[in-house]
Every structure is written in structure tokens, then in C-alpha cells.
């Protein structure tokens, strides 16, 4: 109920006098929220920290953007093509990278994302190199063009809600609980007969698939993309969002993504030192509040109403 009310309230914002610039920031924040939630399935629920999650997002952007420009601007067609490519690659990559975990997984995923980044630079006939993909048209749904601004914002919210509902089902299912068992203790999970590698493989694929949805929305929002969308610093950014917000919950990464976008906007317009300030906050969060903003809110909530569990 609370969730539905919240979603409706957010959807009403463009019609309640909220300035277009804020709506643009919110759209970006909600796209990042989808991406950060997909990352959390790996980091928070399965215990696999990846430094290459930009690969899934950026690849989704390139695939959807290229298809929309060359074939048809239909949103669902572009999404389907992007998903086919992202999920197809995730199945292949996931099969090999799930052999390892911990630091090795983090670095291998980084290396794989950098391969895609370099390909995006080198494969000029398709990706247009460093210039990036430009001229992606506005998306169409059932023949109607989704305008930038309020209409696209609504599309983003609808996608976010669907992704959230789907992922919350998934993490509450027996599959999701198994993932958490693997995160807590991989050896023990294997000892009681869980096929650890298969579960990691599926989680990896789902995570990439969801990130690809975010990438598809992003390429339509920005009307294009550049190789930087695949760069490891982007992978770092989404990791910052998820951890800042609080991994192991779905709300945490959403809060983290919104906080990230708005803080970045605030810091870069008011102070010179966006990286400095955000880096400090991030270090403090990792050191002192491993459960992130969501954890701080939960603690404050319990302190205010101790009787409610």
C-alpha cells in the first residue's frame, strides 16, 4: 500500500509543478536505481562484488540504441533486442566467471568490462568509436512517440516499479534465500547440497538482464551513448550507489541512486570538490556503516519506535 501510494505520488510530480530539470534528474536517478538494484542482486544477495557492472548497462545501451536508430524506435522491440544480446553474453560470461569469487571475481569482471569498453572504442563502423552512438530517436510504444520529459519519466517509473516487484519476488523466493545462504557461507551452502555455481550463474544472468533494461532506458533518455558508459569508473559509481544506499535490501540501492544523482548535482554546482566530498562520505560509510543509508534509517526508526520490531 505504502509502496503503491509512493509510486503514484512520484508519478504525479511532473503535473504538480515540479520543474522539468528536477524531473530529468529524477528520471536519471530512477534509471540508475534499476541498475543499482540489479547490482545488489550480485553484491548484496549473492556476495559477489563486481567492478564491471557497467558492461551490462553500457551493452544494453549500445544494443538498444543501435537497433532503435537503424531498425525501429519501438521501445519493446529495442528492449527485446538489447535483452537478447545482454542476457546471451551474460550466460556465456557468467558460466566462466562464476568459477571464482571474492577479489578474483571483482577483478575478472573489471577486465571483461574493459574488453567491452575497448571494443566500443575500436569497432568504429558500428560504435563510432570515442564519439559514441548519437541520434537515437525518441522511443515509440504502440506507434505513439514517448516524449522526453514527463512521458519518459512515467515510462521510467513504470519500469522501475515492475523491476522492483519482480526482484522483491525473486529475493523472497526460495531461490533468493539460497543466494543469501551462499553469501553467508559458500562452503556450508555447498555442503548441504546447494549447487553454488549454478545459483551464482543464474544470479549473474538475471543481474545483467536487469541492468540491460536500465541501459535501454538510458540510451533513449540521452539519445545516445559513449564508450564511457562501459568504463570501469561507471562500474565504480554504481557500486558506490548500492553500497552507499545499503546492500542486501532493494530499497537501499534505490535510495543510494537517488542520493548519488542529487548529491552529485548539488556538489558540482556549489562546490568544486564533488569527488573529494563523495569519496570521504563513501569511505566513512564502508568503514562505519556497512549497511549504508538504509541501515542508518532502519536504526533510527528502531530508536524512535523501540516497541515496533
Amino acid at each position, binding site marked *: 500500500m505504502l509502496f503503491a501510494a509512493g509510486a503514484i505520488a512520484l508519478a504525479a510530480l511532473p503535473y504538480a509543478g515540479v520543474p522539468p530539470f528536477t524531473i530529468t534528474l529524477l528520471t536519471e536517478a530512477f534509471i540508475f536505481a534499476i541498475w543499482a538494484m540489479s547490482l545488489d542482486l550480485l553484491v548484496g544477495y549473492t556476495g559477489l*562484488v563486481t567492478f564491471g557492472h557497467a558492461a551490462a548497462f553500457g551493452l544494453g545501451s549500445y544494443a538498444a540504441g543501435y537497433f532503435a536508430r537503424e531498425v525501429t524506435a519501438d521501445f519493446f522491440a529495442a528492449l527485446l533486442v538489447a535483452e537478447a544480446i545482454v542476457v546471451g553474453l551474460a550466460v556465456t560470461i557468467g558460466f566462466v566467471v562464476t568459477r571464482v569469487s571474492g577479489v578474483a571475481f571483482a577483478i*575478472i569482471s573489471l*577486465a571483461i568490462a574493459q574488453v567491452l569498453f*575497448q571494443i566500443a572504442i575500436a569497432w568504429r563502423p558500428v560504435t563510432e568509436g570515442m564519439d559514441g552512438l548519437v541520434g537515437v530517436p525518441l522511443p515509440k510504444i504502440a506507434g505513439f512517440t514517448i516524449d522526453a520529459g514527463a512521458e519518459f519519466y512515467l515510462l521510467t517509473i513504470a519500469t522501475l516499479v515492475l523491476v522492483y516487484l519482480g526482484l522483491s519476488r525473486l529475493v523472497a523466493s526460495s531461490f533468493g534465500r539460497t543466494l543469501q545462504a551462499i553469501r553467508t557461507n559458500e562452503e556450508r551452502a555447498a555442503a548441504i547440497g546447494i549447487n553454488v555455481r549454478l545459483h551464482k550463474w543464474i544470479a549473474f544472468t538475471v543481474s545483467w538482464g536487469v541492468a540491460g533494461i536500465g541501459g535501454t532506458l538510458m540510451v533513449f533518455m540521452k539519445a545516445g551513448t559513449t564508450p564511457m558508459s562501459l568504463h570501469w569508473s561507471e562500474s565504480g559509481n554504481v557500486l558506490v550507489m548500492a553500497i552507499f544506499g545499503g546492500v542486501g535490501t532493494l530499497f537501499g540501492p534505490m535510495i543510494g541512486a537517488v542520493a548519488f544523482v542529487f548529491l552529485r548535482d548539488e556538489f558540482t554546482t556549489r562546490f568544486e570538490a564533488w569527488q573529494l566530498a563523495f569519496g570521504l562520505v563513501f569511505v566513512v560509510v564502508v568503514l562505519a556503516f556497512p549497511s549504508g543509508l538504509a541501515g542508518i534509517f532502519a536504526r533510527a526508526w528502531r530508536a524512535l519506535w523501540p516497541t515496533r520490531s
Partner: protein
Amino acid sequence: MDLNFLFVSMLNGVVYGAFLLLTSLGLSLVFGLGRVVNFAHGALYALGGYALLAVIRGAGVGYWPALLLAPLLVVPIAIAIERTTIHPIRHRSDIYTLLVTFGISFVIIGAIEYVWGTGTTLLKPPQPFVSTVDIFGNQYPLYRLVAAGVSLLVSAGVFAVIQLTPVGLRIRAITDDPGMAEALGVNTKWLLTLVFGCAAGLAAFAGALGAPIFAIHPEMGMSILLDSFLAVILGGLGNLPGSAIGAFVVALTKSIGGGYIADWSTAVLFGVVAIALIFRPTGVFGRGRVA
């Protein structure tokens, strides 16, 4: 393609490899000792370049004394960083140090941009190495060769310290078996602090030494950080001779491959490293630690 082009590419590769060697040794040592994957290594490299600028402009000294002073300024900063952020979370899983050093990298680069701005500074090669030398008809900048030579000498010094001194013996003991080393009375925690500081000093030295070649800007450490990772992984994490070979493999692949297949060479390099790490997590030479 013509042989001369290949030769110059190789020469550039060797020069870059000498720099990678300095940064890779530090990364590899810190990982071997404390299983700390230091994402801030590139930022410390950049800090070395800026420390050099600050000393030259602030103290009014020439390039050479500044080159010696700059790393000495970075070492205490790095030690402070280790004591305040990495030391307190040593008991947590390895992945936390990776996240914290990533955040620290943000902080250092942000601080650099705040203090010195986001611009690029080009430094002239220092006296008396401003000229070029003639190698088989190519005019090659003399300073590059000198800097590569200095890098190799310093790296040899690091190897000597690790192999021949009592401190080096303790470092090797911890890399082999931290539990046993500690049981025998080696203070692993302080040694990690010390080595982290010295590794940062090496990175800073490389940043300062490379300033007249690669230019100084806040993000200058990012690509060398990734290349050092590649080198260290190829050689096997914590395996110093492996890292040394890895550094030259990465540098030569980039410079020679870059001349023939342009940006594809780096894609191939990352692909090879990913595959190597999956199937030989102990490095190509099989002597490193499993990450």
C-alpha cells in the same frame, strides 16, 4: 610494416614497461603481504606528480632534488591512510579493503582537483637530458631512456631489499604464510603499514619521474593503475618476478599492438588477462596466490 616503426614501438614499450614495473611491484607487495587490492595506487602515483610540482614551485628547487623529495611527502600520507582506513578493517573480508581503497582514490583525486585544478601540466625534460639521441636514424628523447634506466635501477633496489635484508626476509615470510610468520614473532600489522607506505612512495616516485614524459593531470594514474593490475595478475598476485615480467608483457603488447591493430590491442590484452585469471588464478607462472 617497416622495421623502424616496430623498433620505435618496442623502445616506447620498454620505457613504459620500466614505469609499470615500479607501480606493479608496489601493488604486488601490498597484495602479497596483506591481501590488500589497492585501488588507490593510481591516485598515489598522481599525487607523486603533483608533489613534484609543489616542491619545484614551492621550494624553488630544481627537478632532481624535487624528484627525491616528492615520494617522501607521499609516504607519510599513505601511512596515515593505511592506519586510519585499511588497518581497522583488516579482520573483514578482503573485498572491503578493495572498496575502501576505491573510495580513497576518489578522495585523493578530488583533493588534487581541489588544490591544483583539473588542468594538464606539461613539464620540460630536466637538465642535462633535454636533447634527443640518434638511435638507428630515429631522434629519440634522451630523458625517456634515462628515466627508464632510473626505474630499472630502483626496481632492482626493491628486489635487493626483499631478497637480501632482514626486513625483506620477514616480508617474504608473511607472503608465504602469514599465520606462521606471526607465530614466529613477525609483527605483520606494522610491516603492512610500512610496506604500504613504501609502495605508495614507489608509485609517487614513478609519477614524478614520468611527469616530463606523460604530463601531469588528476586522472593520470587511472590507466597506469589498470595496466599495473594486468601486469600483477599475469605474473601472479604477490609474485614479484612474475609481476616484473607481466609489466613488460603488458607494456610491449600495448605499444607494439597499438601501432598495428590500434585500440583492439588493449581489448585483446584485457581478454587474455581475464581468461588467464579464470583458468590460472595463480598467474601464468603458477607461483602467485589465488586472488
